[in-house]
């Protein structure tokens, strides 16, 4: 087996394992920390797929940003960590059945479909090409993303502002 194949399985294990831990964990903070590893694993898979920029972006945005935000959110909204840390999971059984079914369905589709694949070529970095694309075909989405983020800022701030003047 090639090294990259082994690594693929290692990272798959990391991703899925921590994702599973996250889903089944009772403690929400632990779940958030587990999510870090899951997302890092995904980033590693991106690298294996020759998407280095996306991989680094994944780490930067998810680990450095979203997860910190989620952790802050947890610490902000959980009243009593000793009890509410354990999040209620009532309809666990039907839910697992349902998502299991979805998984089986998806797997079936993916396995049975005939994908027209090309022989992957080794690429040496995607930065330059990405930049070029961003400035040409994706110029509009680029600007739209800017507007979107602006809206996101304003929206998020509007919403998280307290109604009253708090200290």
């Amino acid at each position, binding site marked *: 087996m090639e090294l990259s194949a082994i690594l693929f399985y290692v990272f798959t294990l990391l991703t899925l394992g921590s994702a599973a831990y996250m889903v089944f964990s009772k403690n929400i*903070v*632990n779940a958030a*920390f587990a999510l*870090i590893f899951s997302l890092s694993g995904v980033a590693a898979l991106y690298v294996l797929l020759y998407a*280095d*920029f996306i991989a*680094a*972006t994944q*780490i*930067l945005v998810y*680990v*450095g*940003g979203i*997860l*910190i935000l989620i*952790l*802050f959110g947890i*610490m902000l909204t959980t009243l009593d960590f000793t009890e509410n840390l354990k999040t209620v999971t009532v309809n666990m059984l039907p839910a697992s059945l349902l998502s299991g079914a979805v998984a089986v369905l998806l797997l079936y589709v993916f396995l049975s479909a005939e994908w027209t694949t090309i022989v992957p070529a080794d690429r*040496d*970095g995607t*930065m330059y090409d990405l930049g070029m694309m961003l400035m040409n075909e994706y110029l509009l989405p680029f600007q739209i993303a800017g507007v979107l983020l602006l809206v996101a800022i304003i929206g998020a701030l509007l919403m998280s502002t307290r109604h009253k003047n708090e200290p």
Partner: protein
Amino acid sequence: MLEFLENIIPSSTIALVVFALFPLVLILVYALFAIWAERKIAGFIQDRLGPMRTGGFHGWAQTIADMLKLIQKEDIIPKDASSFLFKLAPFMIFTASYAAFAVIPFSSGYIGSNINIGAFYLLAITSFLTISIIMASWASNNKWSLVGGMRTAAQMVSYEVPTIVTVLSVLIVASSMNLMTITEMQTGNDIMGFLPNWFIFQNPFLIVAFALFFISMLAESHRVPFDLPESESELVAGYQTEYSGMRWGMFMLAEYADMLLLSLLGATLFFGGWNSPFGTFMSGPVWGFGWFMLKGMLLVFVMMWIRWTLPRYRVDQLMHICWSILIPLSFVNFVLVALWEMIF
């Protein structure tokens, strides 16, 4: 360097490992030296001497003794702590700061991993530091830790913005994210006939960028006047309060490694990395390493000098400096750098 190692070492795997071990040795030696130097510098600034007795001449073995002692210290995991996260945090923090060294071009002959997105990768990987500090502080279940950890997180997160923007300012001049390429671009002494081709001399706005970078670097590596995470007089020892023994040693090591990392990044981006200031005179891989380290150490020295001079900021002032001053300034400066590049 890898080829060289492969030549002298029969197994290429071992050669690779030795190759990757080099920064570790460097960090360890540097940490031993820097902690000693920090105490010495503090001593001299304060009209005292600092370590004098351990090991003989000017207490050179002081940090070795400290490390050896830390190994012997009992390792306490408080019973209210989340033991797994508590143990994981030191791993993460050191691993992340070590992995960041992979893309630093130590000399023209040595770079751990010559990836194309070097600078970007480095910025991304440092976000693990923030997470591990939150993890450590949360896991400790100690009030001082938690207050310190939250402060750290807010501080590191905030100052990451100006850091990224100033790094980006350099990247638009270089049009590359490969730190090796960036360094190579700075070879030569062409500016005004004698100045080296370092980026800081290439674009006047990069001087401002460097100032901003340096300030945010102080904050990112928790140095005075931004050393709130560990501010002894307020938070006992901040997020490290509950850590003892070698685990704490890992935090300390990571902290010093972080300081070195950012200094070296600064040296690479602004001061020509391993390039000699005298053109081809005294250049070459070995000399280059020396120059590079010298530049990094100078920055480290300035950081220490500042530490022993200034009081520290308060947390709201810290945030104010970042959000109302550094970030707008760095953006404006970024646009100006780009403009300068367009015009000249």
